[in-house]
C-alpha cells in the first residue's frame, strides 16, 4: 500500500489489523508518535491526517491509503523547531516528555480549528470564541499529561496562538 507521511512517499505491506500508529512506529521507523493507552483516551498518538488531528491508535492503516499524514517528525527539525515546539521548550511544557509529540500535533490541529471558527464546549457564544485559557484546556482535553504539566502546556500554546493572532491582524 502507498502512504504519504510528512510529505514523503512510503510503500508498506501491512496486516489489516495494523493501526496507523503501528504503521508509523513499527513499519516505517517513525517513533515520535507515542503509544500510551492504545484506546483513544490519552492522545499521545495524535497525528494530523489531511490537516485534522486524530488518534492514530484508533484507525486502521489500510483506511489511509493516499491520505496526507503528518507526525511530529514532519513539523520541525532539531535545527529548525516548529513554533509550538520551541514554545514548549521555552515554557517547560513537559516533564517526562512522553505525551509531548501528541500534545504538539494536537495543538497544531486545534489552532487550525480555532482559525476556522470552530466553537468548543467552553464557548459561551458558538459563533465567535476567543481563545482564553479555559478554551485551550477544553480543546486540549483529549491529551493527557500524567506529569500534569498542564499550566505550562497552556502557556506555550497561548504564546503561539497570540503571536499568530497578531500576524493575522
Amino acid at each position, binding site marked *: 500500500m502507498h502512504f504519504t507521511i510528512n510529505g514523503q512517499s512510503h510503500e508498506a505491506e501491512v496486516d*489489516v489489523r495494523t493501526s496507523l500508529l503501528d504503521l508509523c512506529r513499527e513499519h516505517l521507523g517513525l517513533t515520535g508518535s507515542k503509544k500510551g493507552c492504545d484506546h483513544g483516551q490519552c492522545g499521545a498518538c495524535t497525528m494530523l491526517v489531511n490537516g485534522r488531528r486524530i*488518534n492514530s491508535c484508533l484507525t486502521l492503516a489500510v483506511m489511509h491509503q493516499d491520505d496526507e499524514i503528518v507526525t511530529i517528525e514532519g513539523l520541525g527539525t532539531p535545527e529548525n523547531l516548529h513554533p509550538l515546539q520551541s514554545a514548549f521548550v521555552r515554557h517547560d511544557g513537559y516533564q517526562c516528555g512522553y505525551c509531548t509529540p501528541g500534545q504538539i500535533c494536537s495543538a497544531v*490541529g486545534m489552532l487550525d*480549528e480555532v482559525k476556522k471558527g*470552530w*466553537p468548543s464546549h467552553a464557548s459561551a457564544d*458558538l459563533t465567535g470564541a476567543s481563545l482564553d485559557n479555559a478554551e485551550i484546556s477544553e480543546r486540549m*482535553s*483529549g*491529551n493527557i499529561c500524567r506529569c500534569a504539566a498542564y499550566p505550562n502546556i497552556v502557556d506555550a500554546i497561548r504564546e503561539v496562538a497570540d503571536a499568530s493572532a497578531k500576524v493575522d491582524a
Partner: protein
Amino acid sequence: MKTFDYARADSVEAATRAGGRFIAGGTNLLDLMKLQVETPEKLVDISRLDLNTIEEREDGGLTIGALVPNSDLAADPRVIAKYEVLSRALLAGASGQLRNKATTGGNLLQRTRCYYFYDTAAGCNKRQPGSGCEAIGGFNRIHAILGTSDQCIATHPGDMPVAMRALDAVIVTQKADGDKRRVPIGDFYRLPGDTPHIENVLEAGELITHVELPAPTGGRHLYRKVRDRASYAFALFSVAAVVTVEDGIITAAALAFGGVAHLPWRNPAVEAALVGKAPSDETFNAAADALLDGARGFGTNDFKIPLARRTLIASLREVTQ
C-alpha cells in the same frame, strides 16, 4: 485483535451487499475489537462514500450525511443558528481528536460503556446473550435508572443522539435490496428487554445514509451534561431541551435525556407537565416527577435519581429565564 477480511465499498449499494460490519470513523468499533468485545469477520470500509455533506431541504430542515464528522456538524453555521442544542451536545462529547473522526451515523450506533460489557471475563447479556448481567448487583455507578430489564441495565453513552431525540430527527437507511426507509429516532432504538444485544431496528446489511432534522421550531436550546470530569467524560445525566415561553407561559417543550437509559430517553409526560404552565419550581418539580416515575436505582447508581431531578430543574430554570 482477531483478524478480519477488509473491503472498501465504492457505493452505498455495494456496501449494503458486501456482507460485513461497516466501519467509518472506527473510534468505537476498533476500541472494542482490540479488546475482542467485537470480533467481526469482515469489515466494510464506508469512509470514502459520498455521504459527507449537510444539505438544506425545501421544508427548512437539514439532511445530514451519515459520514459528516461530529466536528463539522457541531461547527456548521446552520446547526449553530437553528439547532444549537445539537452543536452543544456534540461539543460536550469526547475530545477534539475523536470528534474529527467520529461520524454522524456511527455516533448513533455507539455501544455502551458498561464495565462488564467491556470485560470479556464477565457475564454480560449484551455481549454474550445468556451469560447474565454482572452490573446488577455489581458496580453500576454509570448505569440506567429508567427502562431497565432484569437482563441489562446498560446506558446508551451518546450525547448527539440525545439532542437528536429532542429534535425529532429521522434516520434514513438503505437496505441490501435497495429499499430505503425513514425511521423516526424515537422508533430506532430498543429497550433491553430480553434481548439487550439487539440495540436498534437495523437489519443485516442496512446502512444509515442520512439523518434528517425537521424544520427548526425556534425556542431556547440547552444541553446540560453532568459528568465526573469537566471535559472528555461520559454523561452521568444529561438534558437536551428546546423550550418556548410566550407571555409567561411555556407553549412548547421538547426534552430528551442521556445517561439514564438504554436509549436516548424521552417521555411525553415530562413535556405535558410543562406545556401550558407558567415556569416555576412547582411546574419543574412536576416535570421531574413525570421523568422519574418508575425510576429505579441498583445500588451505586442510586444517586442518579436525585441528580436527575436537580439537573432537570436547574436546566428548566435556565432555559425558561
